């Protein structure tokens, strides 16, 4: 084998190693994991997965996470589309500053916002709802989406807008039937990043929920502390957490390359 094929293979092996380890652990019993080193599960078991799919405190974690992540993605894209259009097509006082200011929202750690959000949502009785987490994540996802979408929209010439108006399209109709389809790659990339961020974010999601909207990541951390070390169960939960992300990545893989090429991702 040539050197140029060995290097990427080794690289990918190293990348995949922790994921393999996680998947392998999820098929082991906790005793086996704790008893020593084994490359493959010695006593192959599906009990860990069975627990997750039968115990409501586990599978509701997934349902809750998927619910607020979906709500967040929809809100973020719906708000970011018109905002990005304005930034891309109009010049107004302070537009560049505002655009940059949006991005600076991503520079503050989530912990900064945890307390104010908690206090505010408790006061307006949003605490422990899907909407609470979805809205909190908008703080980070809307600026990111605006940034990504603005890049894609900048690649569409203004003449397209003009041609559509001349052809008789009203603005809403043009936006929905011509403009959005023209930047569907950008919408896909932005939605993907909203999904991923919201899916992996733990601090705000944990702070703003108690029981009814508790995310899967929070469920995992609690299990680790209360019932001793249920490592097999945690590994199974971790494996299941990776799957939605992998599915979404599969669908937007080509678009993301485009986004990288534009320097907006």
């Amino acid at each position, binding site marked *: 084998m040539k050197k140029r094929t060995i290097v990427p293979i080794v690289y990918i092996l190293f990348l995949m190693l922790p994921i393999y380890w996680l998947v392998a652990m999820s098929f082991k019993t906790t005793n086996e994991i704790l008893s020593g080193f084994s490359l493959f599960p010695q006593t192959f078991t599906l009990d860990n997965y069975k627990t997750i799919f039968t115990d409501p405190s586990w599978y509701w974690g997934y349902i809750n996470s998927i619910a607020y992540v979906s709500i967040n993605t929809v809100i973020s894209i719906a708000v970011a589309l018109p905002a990005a259009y304005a930034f891309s097509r109009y010049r107004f006082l302070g537009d560049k500053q505002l655009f940059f200011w949006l991005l600076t929202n991503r520079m503050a750690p989530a912990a900064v916002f945890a307390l104010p959000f908690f206090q505010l949502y408790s006061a307006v009785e949003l605490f422990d709802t899907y909407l609470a987490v979805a809205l909190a994540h908008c703080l980070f996802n809307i600026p990111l989406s605006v940034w990504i979408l603005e890049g894609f929209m900048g690649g569409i010439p203004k003449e397209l807008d003009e041609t559509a108006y*001349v*052809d008789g399209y009203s603005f809403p109709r043009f936006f929905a039937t011509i403009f959005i389809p023209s930047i569907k790659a950008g919408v896909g990339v932005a939605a993907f990043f909203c999904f991923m961020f919201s899916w992996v974010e733990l601090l705000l999601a944990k702070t703003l929920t108690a029981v009814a909207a508790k995310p899967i990541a929070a469920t995992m951390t609690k299990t680790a502390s209360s019932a001793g070390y249920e490592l097999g169960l945690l590994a199974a939960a971790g494996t299941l957490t990776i799957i939605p992300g992998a599915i979404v990545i599969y669908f937007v893989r080509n678009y993301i390359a485009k986004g990288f090429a534009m320097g907006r991702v």
Partner: protein
Amino acid sequence: MALELRNVTKRVGAIQHIKETSLILEPGHFNVLLGATGSGKTSLIKLMAGLDPMASGSIHMDGQDITRLNTQKRNISLVHQFFVNYPHMTVFDNIASPLKVAGMAASEIQGRVEEAADILQLRPMLNRRPHEMSGGQQQRCALARAIAKESKAVFLDEPLANLDYKLREELRDQLPELFSGRGAVVVYATSEPEEALLLGGKTALMNDGHVTQFGPTAEIYRDPANVQAAQVFSDPPINTALIVKKGTTAQMGVDVAWDLSGDAANLQDGEYTIAVRPHHVLPVATHGCTVRLQGRVQVTELSGSESSAHFDQGHRSSWVSLSSGVHPYEVGEMHDFYMDPTACYFFAADGSRVA
């Protein structure tokens, strides 16, 4: 039926993009807007299309004031220099889109799209998407959309500028035929004098945000009203020089002089600017070309059927000679050129034509 601009102006901030302009554009022939890049052709088209706000003035279509009418309601078509089509739609849907928006019946849309596609030879490509076609086909698709719509006014903003030479010639020959008999006001912006002459119709010369002259194309070419008009409508650029008129003689510099005749002879004595087209300055003394000039050949160009030479006349600006056939020049040599004195335009100090 006509498109009429009355004292239209446009400004962005303190800059006046279009100075007070009045035009009456009629259907049945091409209305060419001819001017250099940045002279305001596109700005004027955008005003007529209602895409940009006007600072003052009004626009009328068939005697009806459409100044405040939205672009969408003006019943117009626009073809850009860049090939603008809806990227996610097939060619068929692209051509049909204005008709669909207008709520036309599917069967009628089918007929109109097919008719337009036949005229522009797009029939085999109706199911393709714009990015699967060549630039020429993409622009034909944009033209087909304009034709199928059968709007009252069609604006073509340098539609051929981004096409390669062969395609440009082909499409340019088709254009007048495409729009003839459709009753639409056709406005065609271009920076190439040759295109204006080939398309015929009427031409509005644009310079620095206003129309300097408007009339039948051939007439404007023959009778430029001022220096700018003569300059805009000449390719290669028109030759200009200062002369002193005294009695019936014109003196150019110290070395060149000739006898004036016709209108020029009756001018008051004094300084004038003359302009003479490159094809009236020839390397051999023939026909009317009698006034001898001497210059050092700087640049020569051969275009197959024509030869051009830029020659330096020392203290005067360099001139261009354009002659038919292949003429052997050597760069750097002194060469005699002969100007036709009857082909000179005379302009007063303010740029207006006097003879």
